[in-house]
C-alpha cells in the first residue's frame, strides 16, 4: 500500500448499510496488521439522508484524524449514483477510483415531483469524464441474486476486495464477514461478497 493513509469513502443513503461496510473493512484491515481510523455520521442522518463513512488505512504509529480532506479520496465506493457523484465532486481528484452501484434511491423531493433525478447514464458518463477509473457494479441486482437487497453493501465490500488496492486479502475479508453475521445470514452474505468481487474483476 503506497498511499499513507489510503483514503476510502463509502457513500450512500441512510439505511443502505454504510456503517456495516466500513466496519467490516476496518476489521479486515486491523486483522491484516494495518491501522485504521474511521469517521462515521449516524443518528438522524441515517434516516434517508446522505451518509458517508471515511475509512483511512495506514501503517505505523501516526495520528490520523477521522475526516478525509477535500480532493484527497483515493477510492470512492458509492451505493447509489447521485450520492457517488455528489461525494466525488467534493472529495475526488483526477486519480480517484470510483466503484458505483447504478441503482438509484430517489430523494423525497424527486418522488414528490419537486426535483428531477439526473439521468443515471449521464451521471456515469460525467463520472468517467471527471476521473480515469469508474467501475459500475449492479450491486442491488447482485444482492437480490444472493438472496436479499439488504446485502447490497456486502456486494460493494466484495467489489472493494476484488479491486485488490489495499494490503488486505480476499480471504481476510471473507473471514471477517463470516464472523460478523448470524449463522443463518452467513451464506447469503458470502455469496453477495463473492458476486461483488467477481463483478469488478470481469
Amino acid at each position: 500500500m503506497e498511499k499513507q493513509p489510503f483514503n476510502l469513502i463509502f457513500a450512500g443513503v441512510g439505511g443502505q448499510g454504510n456503517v456495516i461496510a466500513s466496519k467490516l473493512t476496518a476489521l479486515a484491515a486491523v486483522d491484516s496488521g494495518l491501522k485504521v481510523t474511521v469517521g462515521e455520521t449516524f443518528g438522524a442522518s441515517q434516516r434517508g439522508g446522505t451518509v458517508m463513512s471515511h475509512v483511512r488505512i495506514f501503517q505505523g504509529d501516526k495520528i490520523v484524524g477521522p475526516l478525509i480532506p477535500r480532493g484527497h479520496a483515493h477510492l470512492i465506493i458509492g451505493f447509489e449514483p447521485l450520492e457517488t457523484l455528489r461525494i466525488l465532486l467534493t472529495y475526488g481528484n483526477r486519480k480517484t477510483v470510483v466503484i458505483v452501484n447504478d441503482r438509484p434511491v430517489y430523494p423525497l423531493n424527486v418522488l414528490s415531483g419537486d426535483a428531477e433525478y439526473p439521468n443515471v447514464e449521464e451521471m456515469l458518463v460525467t463520472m468517467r469524464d471527471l476521473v480515469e477509473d469508474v467501475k459500475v457494479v449492479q450491486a442491488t441486482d447482485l444482492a437480490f441474486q444472493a438472496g436479499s437487497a439488504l446485502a447490497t453493501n456486502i456486494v460493494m465490500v466484495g467489489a472493494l476486495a476484488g479491486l485488490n488496492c489495499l494490503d488486505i486479502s480476499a480471504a481476510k475479508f471473507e473471514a471477517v464477514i463470516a464472523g460478523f453475521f448470524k449463522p443463518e445470514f452467513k451464506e447469503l452474505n458470502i455469496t453477495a461478497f463473492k458476486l461483488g468481487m467477481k463483478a469488478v474483476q470481469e
Partner: protein
Amino acid sequence: MGIENVKLNLPGREVLLTGNEALARGALEAGVKYASSYPGSPSAEVLDTLAKLSSQFNLYAEWSVNEKVAAEGAAAASFAGMRSITVMKADGFNVAVDFFTSLSLSGVKAGMVVVVSDDPSAHSSIKEEDSRYLSKLAHLPVLEPATIQEAKDMTVQAFTLSEAIGLPVVIRCVTRICHASSVVKLGALNNIEVRPELKQKFLTNPQAHVDVENKLREIAKTGGGCLYAGPENAQTIIVTSGPVYTYCLEALEILQLNGEIGVLKLGRTWPLPEAELYNRLKQAREVIFAEEVEPFIEDNVASFAAFHWSELNPLQLYGKRSGHVAGPLGPGIGELNTDVMIDSLIKIKGLNYQRNLLNQDKVKHLEPLPVRDRAFCAGCPHRASFWAIKSALALDGRNGFVLGDIGCYAMGRGRTGYFLLSSVHSMGSGVGLAHGFGKLGQFSFNQPVTAIVGDSTFYHAVVPALINAKANNSNFLCIVLDNETTAMTGHQPHPGSGRDAAGNPSPAVSMENLARGLGLPVYISDPYDIPATVKLINSLLTNNEPQVLILRRTCALVAAKREKRPKVYVDQEICLGDGCGCNRFCTRVFGCPANIWDKEAGKARIDEAVCVGCGVCVSLCPQGAIKVEEV
C-alpha cells in the same frame, strides 16, 4: 469494534474500538460499578456497551428515565464509595445541570465521571450546543479526548482525578470521537469489589463554594494532558482541543507549515492547564485558536493572557472572535475539519494554495443535483400518524396546529411529515407549549391545539406538563407516537418497555395507566388504520379538556427484523397513472420512499428493495390499485 474487543482481558493488545466503546472500556479499566444514561446521539452506545457487559463485570447499568435522575443515581453510588459513570448528550446535560451545580458543592467520594457528547453541526441533534460553558458554570473539570485512544485513557484518568479532588469530572466528546473508530491499545481491566456504604454527609453550604473554587485552583496548577507538536521555538502556535488537533496536524502537513507553526493540544480544557499554557504563550507572537463549537478556550485563554500581559510578548490572537477560524457558515458555527483549518491558515498567513480538485464545471449540465432530505423510513408508523393528524386537522377546518419536540418525529417539521410541526424545542416542550395555548381560550383563542411526543419522551419530560395541564384545567390533545422503543438512538428500552438495559424482563410502567391516574381521558389507536385514526382525532378536537391519544405501532425497523414482510405491489392494470386525478398520491403526496413512479409505464410502482410491507398505502390509493400478498 464490537463487544468482544471491549471485554478483552489482554493488556497491551491493540484492537479496533469506536469512541463510545473506548469510553466504556476506560470505565471498565477504572473498575466502574454503576453506569446510567438516557439515550442520546452521539453517545448512546456507551451505555449500550456497558449494559451488555454488566453481568460479566458485576456492574449495574441502567437506562434512566431522564438525565437528571441518571446523574443522581450515579452520584449515590459515588457517595457510597463505588465508581460511577453517567452519560448524556448536551441536551440531556442541560436537564441534569441543576443537580450538577449543587453536586460540585457537596462533592463526591468515589470517582464519578460524566460523559457529555456534543454534536457540532448537529448531525443527529436539534442544535449544536457547546456544553463546556455549563460544565464551567457547575464548577466541573472538563477533559476532551482528541483520539479514540485518548477517549479510553482519559476515562481512566478522569476517575482518578475525580477521586483525588472529590468532584465529578466531565469528559466532553464530540461526534467525531463517539462515532469514529480506531485502533486502541488496551490497559488492564479492574474488577475491584467494593462494599458500598454511606459514611458521611453530602450537604451544600456557603463554605462549599469557597472549597470548590480552591479545588479548581489546585487543578489549574497540575498538568493538563497537553500534547505539543512542532518546533520548540515556534512563534505561531495553534491552541486546540479534541479531534480538531488531528485536523490542525493534517492541515499544517498539507500546507507544509509543520516546520513553522506549533500545535498545543489541551487535554483538560477547564480549568486551563496554566503552567503549560503560560510557557507556550511566553514564546509566542501569534496564537490561533481552533476548537468546536464556541470560542470557549479562546475566551478563557485570552482572559488568562490578559492577567499576564506585562510578562508576555505583544500577542496577536486569531480565532472565532477575529473571524479567521471559521467554516462556511461563519465563526463559531458548525464542525471544523482539515479543510476549515487549511482555509483559516490561508487567511491568517496570506498563503497561496490551490487544492487538487475536480473541474466542477463538468457537472453543470446535471445541476441542480437534488438535495436529499431526511425522511421517515419506509413503513414508519410516524408517517401514517402525521398523515392522519394532518387529515383530521384539515377536516376540522379551524386552523389547528401541531407542537413537536425531539425524536425521529422532529423530522415532521420537513416534507416527510408534511411540514406539520409548528414548534420543535426540547424534550416534552411541545406539551408545555400546548398547555399555554390551551389557556388562551379566555382571550378568544379558538384554534385546536395538539402536541406530539414520543413514547420515551412521554416518561422523560411529559408527565409534569400533563399534571400541570390537568391541575390548571387546560385544553389540548397530547398525541403519543408510541413505537414501543427509543428509535432514533438505536432502539433502547424505556420505562414502558418491560425490559431493562441488559435485555432482562423488568416491570413496565404503563403510559395509559399513568395518564388515567392523572385523571386524563386516554384513547388508543393504530396509526396504520388511517381512516379510524382520522375519525378519532377529529372527534377529540372538539372536546375542551386535556386528553391523551396513544398511536401505538412498533417501529418499522424493529418490526422488519422480527416479522415476515407481506409483499405489496401495484396492479398496473388498475392504476390509472396521471389519468387518475389523484396527482400521483402515493409517490407525490404520501411520500413513502417505497412508493415510486414507473416512468416507462406511466404508473405507480413499489420499490421492493425498500418496501417493508406495512400496507398503509393500500388503504390510501383511490383506485385500490395497491395490493398486499401475505407470504
